[in-house]
C-alpha cells in the first residue's frame, strides 16, 4: 500500500512535467502560427492583386506568382504519387519477402536514405542526372521539372516508407497467422486485410510525403531551373514557391517583389493547412462510415 501511494505521487510529478512540456511546446507552436499569419496578412491589405497573375517580370512591374504555385503543385503531385506507388511496393516487399537479409538491407537502406541530406541528392543530380538529360538525351538544359521530381521522389520515399512500415508491420504480426490459416496468400493478406484496415494511416503517411515535397527548397532551387513560366512538359524548367522565397528574400525589403514572398509563404502555409484539414475530414468520414 505504502509503495502504491509512492508511485502515485511520482506519477503526478511526472505528469506535471509532461504537462509543462506540452504547454511550452503548445505555446511555442501557437506563437509561430500567429507570427506566420501576421506576416502574411499584409498581402490582403495592400493592393498587390497583381500577385495573383501569371506574369513575373520584376523589371516591368509584373509580380505574379501563379506560375510558381502551379509549378509547386505539379512538382509535389507528380513526385508524391510516384513515390507512393514505389513505397507500396517496397512496403509489401519488406513484409512479404522471405529473403529476410534482403529485407533487413532494404529497411536499413531506407532509414539511411532518410538521413541523406537534400543537398547531397542535389549534388549527385547536378553531376549525374543533368548531364544525362542535357548531353545524353538532348532534353534542353537539363534543369527541369523532371530532374527535380526524380530527386524529390528519392527524398520523400523514405518518409513514406518508414511510416508505412511502422503502420503495417504490427498489423502483419497480428493478423498474418490467422489469415494464412484461412488460405490467404501473403500478397492477399497485404492487399485485402492489412491495407484496407489502415487506409487512414496510409493517407497520413502520403500527406506527410506531399507536405515534404511541397516544402522542399533546395532540390527545386538547384535542379528545376527556376524559370517563371508555365511548363508545357516535364522537361521544362519551373520555379517552386519555396525556391521563389529563397531567391526573392534577397531583394530589398518593402519592394513589391519582396512582398510577393509573403504571399508565397501564405499560400504554402494554406496548402499545408488545407491538406491537413482534408486528411482530418477524410478520417472523420471513415470513422462515421464504420460504426464500431
Amino acid at each position, binding site marked *: 500500500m505504502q509503495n502504491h501511494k509512492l508511485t502515485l505521487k511520482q506519477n503526478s510529478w511526472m505528469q506535471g512535467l509532461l504537462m509543462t512540456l506540452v504547454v511550452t511546446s503548445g505555446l511555442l507552436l501557437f506563437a509561430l502560427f500567429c507570427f506566420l499569419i501576421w506576416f502574411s496578412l499584409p498581402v490582403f491589405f495592400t493592393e498587390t492583386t497583381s500577385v495573383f497573375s501569371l506574369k513575373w517580370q520584376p523589371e516591368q512591374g509584373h509580380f505574379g506568382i501563379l506560375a510558381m504555385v502551379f509549378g509547386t503543385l505539379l512538382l509535389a503531385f507528380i513526385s508524391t504519387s510516384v513515390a507512393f506507388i514505389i513505397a507500396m511496393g517496397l512496403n509489401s516487399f519488406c513484409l512479404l519477402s522471405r529473403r529476410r537479409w534482403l529485407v533487413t538491407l532494404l529497411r536499413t537502406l531506407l532509414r539511411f536514405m532518410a538521413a541523406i541530406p537534400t543537398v547531397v541528392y542535389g549534388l549527385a543530380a547536378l553531376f549525374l542526372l543533368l548531364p544525362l538529360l542535357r548531353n545524353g538525351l538532348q532534353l534542353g538544359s537539363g534543369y527541369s521539372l523532371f530532374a527535380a521530381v526524380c530527386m524529390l521522389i528519392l527524398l520523400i520515399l523514405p518518409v513514406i516508407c518508414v511510416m508505412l512500415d511502422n503502420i503495417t508491420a504490427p498489423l502483419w504480426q497480428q493478423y498474418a497467422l490467422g489469415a494464412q490459416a484461412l*488460405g490467404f496468400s501473403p500478397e492477399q493478406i497485404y492487399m485485402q486485410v492489412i491495407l484496407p*484496415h489502415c487506409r487512414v494511416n496510409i493517407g497520413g503517411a502520403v500527406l506527410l510525403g506531399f507536405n515534404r515535397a511541397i516544402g522542399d527548397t533546395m532540390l527545386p532551387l538547384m535542379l528545376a531551373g527556376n524559370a517563371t513560366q508555365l511548363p508545357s512538359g516535364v522537361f521544362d524548367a519551373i520555379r517552386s514557391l519555396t525556391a521563389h522565397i529563397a531567391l526573392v528574400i534577397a531583394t530589398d525589403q518593402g519592394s513589391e517583389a519582396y512582398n510577393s514572398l509573403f504571399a508565397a509563404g501564405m499560400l504554402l502555409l494554406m496548402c499545408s493547412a488545407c491538406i491537413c484539414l482534408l486528411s482530418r475530414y477524410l478520417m472523420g468520414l471513415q470513422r462515421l462510415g464504420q*460504426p464500431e
Partner: protein
Amino acid sequence: MSDKVRDFEDVVGYLEDVSIRFSDKTILRDVNLQLLKGQLHMLTGPSGCGKTTLLRALNRLNDCFDRHEMSGSISLKLSEGEVDVHLLAHKHLPLLRRKVGMVFQIPNLLPGSIIDNLLLPLKVVAGLDLAHATARCENVLVRVKLWNEVKDRLNNDASSLSGGQQQRLCLARTLALEPEILLLDEPTASLDPENTKVIEELLESLKQQYTMVMVSHSPAQTVRLADKVFRLDGQQVIGA
C-alpha cells in the same frame, strides 16, 4: 511411403516419423498417424504437449514461426490428388491451407466487422461474388447458432463479441470456405453446455463431408464424438 498404408482406400492422410522442433526443443518425435476418410480423430493430451503443433503441421502453419524444424513426411489425399505436404513449395501453401481449414484455440479475428470476418475470406480466397458470399454467410451463422445473436449487428466490430461468440464466428468462417479436412482446436472450450451440444451435433453431421482432426480436453466430449482417439504424451502418440 510404406505400401501397406497405400492399400487402404479410405486413408486420406498419413504422417510418418514426423518430428517437430521449436528453437532446438523437440516438441514431437517420430509421430506416426493415419487419418481415415470421413472420421473425426480426437487428439488429447496434457496442456503443452504439442497438440496444436501437430494440427499446424498438417497445414504447414508451423512454417510461420521462426526457428521451426520439421522432419518426416505428411501426405494428404485432397481432391487434387495426393499431396506431399512436407514437400510443398511455398507458393502452393495458400491452396493447401484453404483445403485444410483450421479453427484456432484462441479465436483469431480479422480486423473489421463481424460480417467482414466472413465475407473477406469468401471474396478473396474463394473468389465468390457478394450475393453468393452473403448467402453463405447467413447459412453458416445459422448452423453455428450465432445468427440470432448477431443478425442485427453484423456491421459491429468483431472484437466486441464475447469469447464464445468469437469462437463460433471463427468456426463459421472456416466452414464457409468449405475445406476438405477440418482441424479443430478445442472449438467448444468456451461454450456453455447448450451451445456445445449444438456444435457437437453440427460436427457429427459434418462427418460425411469432412475428415476432421479435433483437439478436446473433455473426456465426455471425446466419448461422444470421436471415431478414433490419439493420445499425445511425451512427444509421442500413444494408442493410435
